[in-house]
């Protein structure tokens, strides 16, 4: 049943899907041509956050345009928690696609290197933190009041690029630290799961008490 709700989210952003999916492929190529030193983790992170945010906002706009449709869905045996879980699954799906697209790119384009497990997990953690915080807030305050957050993110992106060099340094630090690779990966995985679970539970709690109409 969850799959069908994820399908619903995909159907709702159908119009923008193709464009966004192409962006995921085009953006690394663009960076490769302009600033090849930014390839790798930074590029991947930006494309993940950008794609997830854009599609997430499009889906939120669609839901906001048709509140009665959400109500109808809640009148069916689909539970409210299932609707929320599907939304999180939707985001994870986008992340997975970004990873696969990037890896395929690495396969065919020699200048693009494969992502390391560590950088993938780190990107996952960062995007999970961002959405883990943003999603419950959006459920609580609604799309109207939180959409400006998105605009800020988009505007801030050009400024993120220089800031990323700092992240680079911190990553090197993580890599140089004494823990084994396995331990680092495990910590990241546990953190991702923990944040996902907490965010999910909070979102579900908020949404169960909401008046849908």
């Amino acid at each position: 049943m969850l799959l069908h709700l994820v399908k619903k989210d995909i159907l709702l952003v159908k119009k923008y899907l193709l464009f966004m999916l192409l962006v995921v492929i085009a953006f690394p190529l663009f960076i490769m041509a302009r600033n090849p030193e930014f390839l790798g983790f930074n590029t991947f992170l930006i494309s993940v956050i950008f794609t997830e945010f854009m599609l997430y906002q499009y889906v939120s706009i669609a839901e906001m345009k048709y509140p009665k449709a959400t109500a109808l869905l809640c009148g069916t045996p689909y539970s409210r928690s299932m609707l929320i879980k599907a939304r999180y699954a939707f985001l994870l799906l986008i992340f997975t696609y970004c990873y696969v697209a990037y890896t395929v790119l690495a396969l065919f384009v020699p200048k693009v290197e494969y992502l390391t497990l560590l950088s993938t997990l780190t990107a996952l953690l960062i995007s999970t933190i961002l959405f883990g915080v943003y999603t419950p807030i959006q459920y609580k305050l609604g799309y109207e009041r939180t959409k400006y957050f998105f605009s800020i993110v988009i505007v801030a992106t050009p400024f993120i690029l220089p800031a990323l060099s700092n992240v680079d340094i911190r990553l090197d630090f993580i890599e140089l630290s004494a823990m084994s690779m396995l331990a680092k990966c495990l910590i990241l995985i546990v953190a991702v799961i923990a944040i996902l679970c907490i965010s999910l539970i909070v979102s579900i709690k908020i949404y169960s008490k909401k008046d849908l109409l």
Partner: protein
Amino acid sequence: MSSILEVTGLNKSYGDFSLSDVSFTLEEDCITGFIGINGAGKTTTIRTILGLVTRASGTIKFFGKDMNKYEQELKDRIGIVLDDGGFYDELSMAEMTSIISPAYSRWSEQDYKTFMERFSLNPRQKIATLSKGMRMKYSLTLALSHQADLLIMDEPTSGLDPLIRSQLMEILKDYMKQGGKGVFFSTHITSDLDKVADMLILINNGRILFEEEKDILIDTHRLVKGDIKDLTDETRNLFLNIQETEFGFSGITNQLSKVQKNLHDILIERATIEDIMLGYIEKETKNNVITSR
């Protein structure tokens, strides 16, 4: 006969409107009309029953089971028609169906196809291009394609022409023929109910004014017309509401024998559901004015 729906002590506040202590029961094999003017609380009640909005207090039981405990299981047996459908207009009917149908364990693709054909609906058509009547028919198709035991409909006929409305009533009667089913629908177009309703529940200002068998309502109320001169304070009280013009009065009463004893030279007719509904609403409004003084 067992109860299909039992609502007890429903309370819900929305700013300056609230449902107060709404209680009623729907029996099996009955079509129940939920009537009231716009803003009376029909839609709020239905949304509260379905869990679409939270309630301050009250219990809701379907088929004897508490909604709080058995929500998914119960919703599986309920067919819903919301006013204006409640669809993602950008999708086609087929796409919308592909989202909704997996929710129900007893979905019947056969029934779905039969209804779509019967209503001449093309599944690939975008929902935004459908007329109001087609939207209702599509909504009904979804509600009737998963072997629901109870149909709950919120103003399914508003904005529709008399032909479609009477077609809908026929479909409801067919649905009831299966036995063990129930229909609950809210409307302010009471003429539809004259023909098909078994029970009527009137809500006004968030309160239930009556819950009665339609035939009994029609039997016990009359529309009386006569000369104003014959009205006294005492006889005025025998009526739920009275309209007076220079040519005479007309009013609804549920105390016909007393009226006949006290007033002579009157015309007596059967009242329509609308007459009776307006009668109770006016009486309630008058009472509220009196108590607020």
